[in-house]
């Protein structure tokens, strides 16, 4: 920590938050809000005189409220920067009549009550996100009478009670009578591995943390009875199993079974635990002086803000998603942004440090190149056709399109565009060209596909990263399926324009299949949400026109789901067999008339253009 504070190449901005980030790989512009500390951090000598005179007693966040601090304070003795700050919500008042005591005693004169937040602007080429994780709030779950029984605490509170910074020194005293407890129990997986209460995932660190705590206790208090109640003890890390063994050898009792409930003895304030020992099948009762809930961890609430500001993706568990699980686990899906530590998933210290070094190496690789090449698959806007309606700005997952002034045509920031093509698919005015995946190129492929015997073919769109790759894996695994699908590859299913679908039906396609990534896997953050919305709209229109909506199928298939691809192919082929030549002819007739849907769709009431079935200009 000291090294970070001292390093000449590191500018430390504490008590600061990222407000806004614009730009793209190699060229990010960042606005940081540095909150007022009311104490000059460079001048402060941490002499403590100010805190001595401060009359306010406030809740000490850093001790989880187990201790108090003053309104002017330093978070903990080794803080970097080693400077006090004032919490203005606690402070009595800054004019001399109200208080102003700290100002009087401050020798270096570093207190300034009028300090304001400042905005710092930075230009950087790379960003490493290391926003960490949070501990589950035990009061929300309130398991095992946590809020009611004083001698029930969380593992993090236990950490404070045994920590060197705590008022009792390093002696563990139980809250009710301030005596060293004779017996203690730990309940594992509180808030973890539970779909209903807390989180479904394993929090990774709690088993080892408890093993560590029991070793600490057994070293200091060899006679203390220790119980650990668990479902599974997970000690997969290097040397971890040894520690677990040592803990058992030192007499810690590991009981396989999670207590249903606990009671408190009203006299002694002891906690009585009833647990079914699943190894012996017997019900056991343990009277304990103290009970520790080994609580899990969760994504920080602020992760959502950072995710928005940096256009990152979130996995279903709420942690930030990496670019590729195995092949690219450190890069975020946005170029030039890397993930380190627990913002990506719960980790122990070693795991965090390892990933951080990896992220630094990935960032350095980019920095050292000095120039970076960006794929030419980007979108282009024709300013003459653009009406500045703003839909492209809205759908772009990367904020790569901007409208500078009102009514000015939209512009693409080429280096920020990732090439999903959603903007081109959503533009109602044909103003956007997706380079290398143009309308003309795709419509020509549909023409070629359906020129002969269209009734035999399933017009299939597959996104490059998931469904196309899933089909590749089916091949690699030699999984057989009907041969009727003809695949058109797009980078993202978001590229599949409504007019491609209408054109395919007009050219006699019995079935059109649009396939893409599962929501969590979308390579373009959330571009495939637009695919779904679009398909839902087309289903309605098909129905209005008297065409069976099921002839347009939507499927999500990951790169790993070869079997799923097979079942999708089979289902599509079964469906194709139900579409007769007459039905296809009828569809062509309906669509060639270019007639409006029979009932008025909402979109039209708003005066939007109807889907134009334009003949491809392929010839």
């Amino acid at each position, binding site marked *: 920590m000291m090294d970070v504070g001292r390093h000449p190449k590191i500018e430390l901005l504490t008590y600061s938050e990222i407000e806004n980030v614009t730009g793209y790989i190699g060229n990010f512009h960042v606005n940081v809000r540095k909150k007022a500390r009311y104490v000059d951090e460079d001048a402060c000598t941490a002499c403590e005189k100010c805190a001595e005179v401060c009359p306010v007693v406030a809740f000490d966040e850093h001790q989880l409220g187990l201790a108090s601090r003053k309104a002017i304070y330093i978070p903990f003795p080794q803080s970097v920067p080693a400077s006090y700050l004032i919490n203005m919500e606690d402070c009595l008042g800054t004019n001399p009549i109200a208080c102003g005591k700290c100002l009087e005693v401050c020798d270096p004169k570093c207190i300034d009550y009028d300090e304001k937040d400042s905005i710092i602007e930075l230009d950087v080429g790379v960003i490493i996100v290391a926003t960490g994780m949070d501990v589950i709030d035990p009061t929300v779950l309130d398991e095992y009478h946590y809020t009611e029984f004083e001698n029930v605490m969380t593992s993090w509170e236990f950490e404070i009670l045994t920590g060197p910074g705590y008022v009792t020194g390093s002696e563990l005293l139980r809250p009710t009578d301030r005596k060293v407890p004779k017996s203690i129990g730990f309940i594992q997986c509180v808030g973890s591995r539970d779909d209903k209460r807390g989180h479904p995932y394993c929090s990774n660190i709690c088993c080892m943390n408890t093993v560590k705590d029991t070793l600490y206790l057994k070293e200091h208090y060899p006679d203390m009875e220790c119980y650990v109640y668990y479902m599974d003890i997970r000690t997969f890390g290097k040397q971890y199993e040894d520690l677990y063994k040592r803990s058992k050898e030192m007499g810690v009792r590991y009981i396989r079974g999670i207590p249903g409930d606990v009671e408190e003895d009203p006299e002694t304030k002891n906690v009585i635990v009833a647990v079914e020992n699943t190894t012996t099948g017997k019900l056991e009762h343990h009277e304990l002086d103290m009970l520790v809930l080994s609580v899990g961890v969760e994504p920080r609430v602020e992760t959502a803000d950072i995710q928005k500001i940096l256009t990152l993706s979130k996995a279903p568990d709420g942690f930030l998603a990496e670019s590729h699980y195995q092949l690219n686990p450190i890069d975020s899906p946005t170029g030039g942004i890397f993930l380190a530590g627990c913002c990506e998933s719960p980790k122990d210290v070693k795991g965090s440090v390892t990933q951080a070094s990896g992220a630094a190496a990935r960032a350095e690789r980019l920095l050292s190149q000095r120039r970076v090449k960006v794929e030419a698959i980007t979108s282009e806007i024709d300013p003459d056709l653009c009406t500045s309606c703003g839909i492209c700005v809205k759908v772009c997952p990367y904020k790569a399109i901007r409208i500078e002034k009102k009514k000015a045509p939209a512009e693409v920031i080429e280096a920020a565009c990732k090439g999903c093509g959603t903007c081109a698919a959503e533009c109602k005015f044909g103003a956007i060209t997706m380079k290398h995946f143009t309308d003309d190129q795709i419509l020509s492929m549909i023409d070629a596909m359906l020129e002969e015997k269209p009734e035999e073919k399933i017009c299939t769109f597959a996104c490059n990263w998931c469904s196309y790759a899933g089909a590749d894996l089916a091949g690699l695994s030699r999984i057989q399926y009907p041969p009727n699908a003809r695949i058109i590859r797009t980078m993202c299913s978001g590229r599949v324009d409504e007019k491609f679908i209408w054109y395919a039906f007009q050219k006699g396609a019995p079935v059109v299949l649009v396939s893409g990534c599962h929501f969590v896997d979308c390579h373009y953050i959330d571009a495939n949400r637009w695919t779904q919305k679009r398909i839902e709209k087309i*289903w309605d229109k098909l129905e209005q026109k008297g065409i069976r909506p*099921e002839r347009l199928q939507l499927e999500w298939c990951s790169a790993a789901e070869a079997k799923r691809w097979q079942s999708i192919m089979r289902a599509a082929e079964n469906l194709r067999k139900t579409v007769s030549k007459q039905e296809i002819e009828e569809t062509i007739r309906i669509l060639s008339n270019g007639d409006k849907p029979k009932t008025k769709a909402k979109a039209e009431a708003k005066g939007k253009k109807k889907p134009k079935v334009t003949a491809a200009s392929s010839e």
Partner: protein
Amino acid sequence: MAEEAKFKCLRCGHEYTDTYTPGVPQERTCPKCTSNSVRRMKEK
């Protein structure tokens, strides 16, 4: 706010009730055949 709605699978025809939040797209999977071609049926 989540609302209840009827959904129909366009692969197997299965109909079921589920919650949805207007304006928030959600990945839907037919509980019977696992297809994602699940359509929300509007009330008549």
